């Protein structure tokens, strides 16, 4: 068992970081720290997680820090509407605690009440099954305002032992298949039926997001992945009266031709091929599959070329923030890492591509398990830096913001833009 996530004595505490950056919203800082340290649900807190009302963990593409998949709330929401997607974490790793006090769900740290929270509510369609008998909750998972479809839970980079080092998708899939009986690949019909039901709930959703593992098969590498997305997106699109609908595709970086095909044949409106780490050398080490099949420079070029199709700001990329500090090849100094990441992000922003981050969680099912993610100070400066780049280059982030996504502290700040 690793104790690596424990706050190091040299690290600033939450209050110290909050005092250092008074212009950074405390609630977004708290979300970031919860994501960094994880969360532990007490039995009392779990006793009020009602499967009839709340969304319990189910169809995550990635695993948890404690290796358990089910029966916990999927995530929670803070009083400003900020979503906190976080992984249940063993107590000995110093997570925040979710407890029940006087009938209220509260977040505790060192025994002190920090904030009141609410579990995400379950969408109506979670109670239904498709005509082929698949529970709709297994077809699309819900966030407070977004429908999340994972058409394929397998990443073919893993078959060559070239999965990203922070990723546990295939190990998680094996566990989900045996414990939850999740379909590894969705049928377009099941998707169409699920979206149809989801849209019946008034005011529940503002966007649809698709993501899968990579699949390099096809005449041109990744044609198979492209074809499958088109099929699924067309099935989604059957339910809309408009040709385009608020949507996001998180996928491999495709060629212009492949992208044009997706754009023209579906209702997709934004594109997010995740580069994961903004450094060429580290990309080659951390994302060997992406490096082999596309390469760092070409990935960046594909991002930039995609702007011609989707427009400025509607192409972005996500980084797994903190993984650039992973041992043994990562940066050893946070200041240097931050400078390097923001320089690369600025290069992309100057071409109309925005960068968002998720907090790196060294999951037990990943190669980099047991390592330590970055300090809160680092994550705060990174969020502020990426937000400033969006301001400087006038890039909207509506499709991946606090509401359409909710998993990026930096784009939460877009609520002020």
């Amino acid at each position, binding site marked *: 068992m690793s104790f690596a996530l424990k706050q190091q004595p040299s690290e600033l505490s939450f209050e110290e970081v909050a005092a250092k950056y008074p212009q950074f919203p405390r*609630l977004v800082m708290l979300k970031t720290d919860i994501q960094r340290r994880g969360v532990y649900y007490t039995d009392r807190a779990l006793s009020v997680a009602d499967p009839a009302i709340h969304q319990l963990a189910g169809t995550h593409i990635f695993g948890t820090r404690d290796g358990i998949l089910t029966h916990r709330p999927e995530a929670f929401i803070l009083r*400003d509407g900020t979503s906190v997607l976080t992984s249940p974490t063993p107590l000995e790793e110093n997570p925040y605690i979710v407890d029940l006090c006087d009938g209220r769900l509260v977040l505790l740290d060192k025994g002190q009440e920090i904030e009141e929270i*609410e579990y*995400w*509510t379950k969408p109506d369609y979670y109670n239904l099954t498709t005509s082929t008998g698949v529970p709709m909750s297994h077809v699309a998972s819900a966030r407070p*305002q977004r429908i999340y479809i994972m058409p394929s839970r397998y990443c073919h980079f893993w078959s060559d032992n070239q999965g990203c080092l922070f990723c546990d998708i295939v190990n998680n899939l094996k566990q989900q298949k045996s414990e939850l009986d999740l379909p590894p690949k969705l049928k377009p019909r099941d998707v169409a039926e699920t979206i149809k039901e989801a849209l019946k709930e*008034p*005011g529940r959703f503002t966007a649809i997001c698709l993501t899968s593992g990579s699949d390099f098969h096809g005449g041109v590498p990744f044609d198979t992945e492209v074809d499958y997305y088109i099929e699924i997106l067309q099935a989604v699109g059957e339910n809309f009266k408009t040709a385009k609908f608020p949507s996001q595709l998180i996928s491999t970086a495709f060629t212009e031709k492949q992208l044009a095909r997706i754009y023209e044949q579906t209702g997709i409106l934004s594109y997010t091929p995740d580069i994961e780490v903004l450094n060429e050398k580290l990309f080659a080490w951390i994302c060997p599959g992406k490096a082999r099949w596309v390469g760092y420079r070409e990935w960046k070029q594909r991002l930039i070329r995609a702007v011609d199709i989707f427009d400025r700001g509607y192409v972005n990329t996500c980084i797994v923030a903190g993984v650039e500090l992973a041992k043994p090849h990562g940066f050893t100094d946070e200041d240097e890492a931050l400078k390097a990441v923001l320089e690369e992000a600025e290069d992309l922003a100057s071409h109309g591509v925005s960068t968002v981050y998720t907090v790196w969680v060294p999951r037990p099912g990943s190669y980099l398990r047991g390592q330590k993610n970055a300090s809160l100070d680092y994550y705060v400066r990174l969020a502020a830096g990426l937000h400033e780049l969006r301001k400087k280059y006038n890039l909207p982030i509506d499709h991946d913001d606090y509401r359409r996504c909710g998993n990026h502290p930096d784009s939460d700040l877009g*609520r*002020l833009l």
Partner: protein
Amino acid sequence: MAVDITEKLAALLGKADTVKILVTTDEEGAPHAVVKDSLRLDEQHRLIYLELLESSRTNKNMVRSIWFNRAVAVAVAGANGESYQIKGKPVKAIVSGPLFRKYYQQIREQCDDADLAAVWVIEPENIIDQSFPVRRRQEEASHPYFKHLDRLAK
């Protein structure tokens, strides 16, 4: 510290002809005042404000207020000269869940074209009766010099 809204003020807030103006401030502290008919009270007598436009200046200012603990003000004016100012802080932005759905459906019934971005909850911290007779009595009591002498002449 939250304060109670009187029954009289609650009734005024519920009247159709009452004018309600929400005043928020931007990054520089510049005020932004907008008439908001949707302002109402919930069961706990907190102010509820329905934001229909996600990118509105008011919505951004409300986010700034909840993040940085900044006050907002609501001016309430009745048809018979009643006038109040309620100062408070946004304590919650509801963007999903049953309450959001309830208000979303209300809004959609009222207007086919409308959407709902957030249900804001404002906790009142200070209520000032701004109606002229009340304010004049207060001023006369606390500032006996603040008047023209001809008003006192025989």
